[in-house]
């Protein structure tokens, strides 16, 4: 579904991603973990070109792009590639001037030019799925963080993306609200949605992930099944990262 080859990203002369190779298969869930500043967010944002990679190649679905010197990406290509994925943000980023329903319909109606009624029916269906049908007419400020994030997920789903990208979707939430968001994500995973999730929720990772990738200093340190990573880590640095998570001092 997503194929990343020798992907690099630098901000000025600060090399953040140093040659990433990754394959994300259809209907699988990949969880990306790693220390703060290791480049997790940057990697995720490169997948939908919110950050422009400086080198390498990226394929999402059937759309391929290569990056590098003298290779200025065309606006049209950026849009084509971006429209294959949906993104859920740490701080939700709902549109505050639109109702929940309008937030979800915005993509289908404005970007995909779907008919109003069709988009609305689909939006209500998605709201039902995330358990917020009764909030259709509310404004984002009237919702709790957990509810806002569930709307964020519905908004991302509404454009029928081939893959959903999550950047720490629960880390801005009060602990008691984390569960409702992870619950929705788990359900999507069970339905076969392809997902890439940056998270610190290790329980979620071990239960839901098909593959875990540990990023460290802009490189992939280790990847494998949850069992591989949590129970049989090969690298010393993986062990020390995981032990710091369990016993964070």
């Amino acid at each position: 579904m997503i194929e990343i080859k020798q992907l690099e990203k630098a901000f000025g002369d600060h090399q953040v991603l140093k040659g990433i190779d990754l394959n994300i298969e259809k209907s699988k869930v990949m969880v990306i973990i790693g220390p703060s500043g290791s480049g997790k967010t940057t990697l995720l944002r490169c997948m939908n070109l919110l950050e422009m990679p400086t080198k390498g190649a990226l394929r999402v679905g059937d759309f391929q792009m290569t990056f590098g010197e003298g290779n200025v990406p065309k606006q049209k290509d950026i849009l084509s590639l971006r429209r294959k994925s949906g993104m859920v943000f740490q701080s939700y980023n709902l549109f505050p001037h639109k109702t929940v329903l309008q937030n979800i319909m915005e993509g289908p109606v404005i970007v995909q030019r779907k008919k109003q009624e069709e988009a609305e029916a689909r939006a209500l269906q998605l709201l039902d799925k995330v358990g917020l049908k009764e909030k259709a007419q509310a404004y984002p400020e009237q919702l709790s963080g957990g509810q806002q994030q569930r709307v964020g997920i519905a908004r991302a789903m509404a454009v029928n993306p081939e893959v959903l990208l999550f950047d720490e979707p629960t880390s801005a939430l009060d602990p008691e609200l984390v569960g409702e968001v992870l619950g929705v994500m788990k359900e999507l995973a069970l339905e076969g949605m392809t997902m890439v999730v940056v998270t610190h929720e290790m329980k979620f990772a071990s239960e839901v992930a098909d593959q875990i990738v540990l990023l460290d200093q802009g490189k992939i340190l280790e990847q494998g099944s949850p069992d591989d990573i949590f129970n049989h880590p090969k690298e010393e640095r993986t062990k020390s990262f995981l032990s710091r998570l369990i016993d964070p001092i």
Partner: protein
Amino acid sequence: MDDRSARLYHIFVESFLPLLKAGVEFTIPLTLVSFFFGLLLAFLTALVRLSPVTPLKLIARFYVWIFRGTPLIVQLFIIFFGLPSIGLTLSPFLAASIGFSLSVGAYGSEIIRAAIISIPQGQWEAAYSIGMTKNQALRRIIIPQALKVSVPPLSNSFISLIKDTSLAASITVTEMFQKAQQITARYYEPMLLYCEVAVIYLIFSTVLSSLQNRLERHFDLHSSNKGSRL
């Protein structure tokens, strides 16, 4: 009531309608026309300044620089008294409208530009993430929020403009202040007449700022984003 008071009272009452008439015929239309075209210009200028087209950006910056950096009355004099010498003669009202519009455009563009910049980056990213183009993001997501942020400062500009139209007196527009000067010349009661005209300006700006409050409340009903960063 002694004679002097009676005379003052008489002049006050006598002058009120002519002053109000000048206000309704000139001050208010001048304000509305200039604000309308000024806002259009402000909006265009702000968008140009945020666009990637360098030559246009330079022109926009030059325009704002000139009109913010020079006194309004000097601009009016150049337009009305200066332009005829290069063959462009404008009626006083038109000259004043152009001058005020250009001034509102310059200040307003800075207000709108600042409001657009104040919308959190996450709003752009959310718009892009659902596949929007830059124009769609601007039109559907950023500008509606930016407009709300710019209502209070733009309302201030509007109130200022009502008062600034009195400068049109200096280029022979018979707006309210010019009228007050004319009546003063007849009765020699400057204290009374200038206070009277001040009262009418106060009424105009009070009524119009209550409209502003209503506009702000209208925007408030439809969202609560105060333009704060997340």
